């Protein structure tokens, strides 16, 4: 492997870093987009079984080719532009929804040392890029020149900004105990501690001392991605499909890609920040990428389970939960952790 790399390096010369990074990006993004496609299939199947239905089973064996068929259908559909829409921003909207949800993966480590850009301020980068995701929704809603789309955009932006506050405070707790903004370091730090020394690594992970934060973080993540039960921006019973109502074909598909990529991202981040990333839960099993994938799959299943279980929130309840429940919980826990770290009882030394 290393011989091949040095050979390619000598052959390509100064262009090598570019080629190498593009390769890394492809190796990360192709499985991600495949995962997005099959997450839609998993969602339809799992929710189907939860509701005592079969779900898609016609295209290919057991319906395995259904996502491919969906993608082809969306590719060939006509993209319609409303006559009164702002033509430029109408197409900027879906692009701005997808771009941050792919960009953010640059800083997400999937295994020890397997990361495109091992940033010192990785967590800050992730937060900054996640905060850009709201633009796609707002721009799409406004540029469509439709009242449903606009209402959806207003709801989405208010909701995403509100839950970002709780998320931000939660992440401050994480970096308080880790002492670093580097995501790989945050994972490595979780592999140390009294329990990890005694072979029970999973009790040393951040989820136990930061339990309320872990719960708040994941629920805020569900709200950030506008998924059920926080899917008011696209609540079909009142505002049809919110910001996506005027879109069709590939433009519509981009919103879907972004939404599912964000779900996968939230699951990965929850695993990395609170559940030890690629670390093995017990000492006698080796660490590795598979642990991160297993943990993220559990959270993705939780997403679907929540969607199949809970009815949609009413709008004022969403705002109340974000500002009056989650923000106080995270602030109080931040103080608790800060004081805890200064006492002799601190477990992070």
């Amino acid at each position, binding site marked *: 492997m290393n011989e091949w790399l040095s050979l390619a390096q000598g052959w390509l010369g100064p262009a090598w870093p570019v080629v190498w990074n593009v390769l890394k990006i492809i190796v990360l993004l192709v499985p991600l987009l495949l995962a997005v496609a099959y997450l839609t299939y998993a969602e339809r199947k799992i929710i189907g079984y939860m509701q005592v239905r079969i779900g898609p089973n016609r295209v290919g064996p057991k319906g395995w080719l259904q996502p491919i068929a969906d993608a082809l259908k969306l590719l060939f559909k006509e993209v319609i532009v409303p006559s009164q829409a*702002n033509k430029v*921003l109408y197409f*900027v909207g879906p692009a701005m929804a997808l771009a941050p949800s792919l960009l953010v993966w640059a800083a997400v480590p999937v295994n020890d040392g397997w990361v495109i850009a091992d*940033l*010192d*301020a990785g967590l*800050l*980068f992730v*937060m*900054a*890029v*996640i*905060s*850009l995701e*709201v*633009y796609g929704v*707002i*721009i799409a809603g*406004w540029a469509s020149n439709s009242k449903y789309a*606009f209402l959806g*955009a*207003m709801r989405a*932006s*208010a909701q995403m*900004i509100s839950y*970002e506050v709780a998320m931000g405070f939660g992440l401050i707790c994480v970096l308080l105990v880790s002492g*670093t*903004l580097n995501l790989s370091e945050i994972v490595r730090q979780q592999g140390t501690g009294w329990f990890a020394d005694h072979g029970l690594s999973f009790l040393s992970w951040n989820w136990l001392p930061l339990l309320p934060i872990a719960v708040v973080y994941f629920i805020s993540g569900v709200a950030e991605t506008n998924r059920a039960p926080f899917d008011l921006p696209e609540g079909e019973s009142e505002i049809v499909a919110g910001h996506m109502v005027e879109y069709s074909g590939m433009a519509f598909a981009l919103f879907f890609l972004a939404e599912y990529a964000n779900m996968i991202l939230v699951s990965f981040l929850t695993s990395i920040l609170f559940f030890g990333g690629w670390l093995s839960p017990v000492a006698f099993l080796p660490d590795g990428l598979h642990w991160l994938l297993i943990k993220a799959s559990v959270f993705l299943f939780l997403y679907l389970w929540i969607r199949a279980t809970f009815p949609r929130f009413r709008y*004022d*309840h969403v705002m*109340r939960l974000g500002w009056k429940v989650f923000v106080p919980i995270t602030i109080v826990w931040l103080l608790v952790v800060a004081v805890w770290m200064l006492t002799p009882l601190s477990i992070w030394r």
Partner: protein
Amino acid sequence: MDVVSFVFTLFAFFLLLGALGTVFSRNPVAAAMWLVLTFFSAGGVWLLLQAEFLALTLVLVYVGAVMVLFLFVVMMLDLNLAKLREGFWHNAPLALLVGGALAIELYLMLTSPAFHRAAAPAVAGSNTKMIGEVLYTVYAYPFEVAAMILVVAMIAAVTLTHRKRSDVRVVKPEEQIAVKASERLKVVSLPAEKE
């Protein structure tokens, strides 16, 4: 041209493009979007100075929060562009005066020797940690004062805009959540009626 200069030129180009777009675009929403591009490019330029904490905070705070609220307000407003342009010639002399003063100030600053200092050499290690250390030791008082000013401003904004209307009926989520099934539903057992 090496990679750094190329990236700088790219960001600088988009920074200027964004700034010009903000000033010259007729549509307020488009102007706000150009401003977003401006902030983002400025963040990129700061990254090249190895000020990654400031760059990412600029994107997080200004692009991710402030500009979203800006857009929120601009989109809600029913702006009449013709009316906005009405007093143009009336205000033009004053605007020229202010603009001229700013241009002269910029010129003086750019030509002064204080501006032509070599950039401080980048230090290894986390920029975030260094800023944090300085902020909580050397600049602790200014930092606290800034925090106090922000809190006061926030409370003032809330009290100024908050109004409680007593003539409307509103649902209170607290009361709704506190309701128990026994308060709403009474289960009675009725003996079966016999002929």
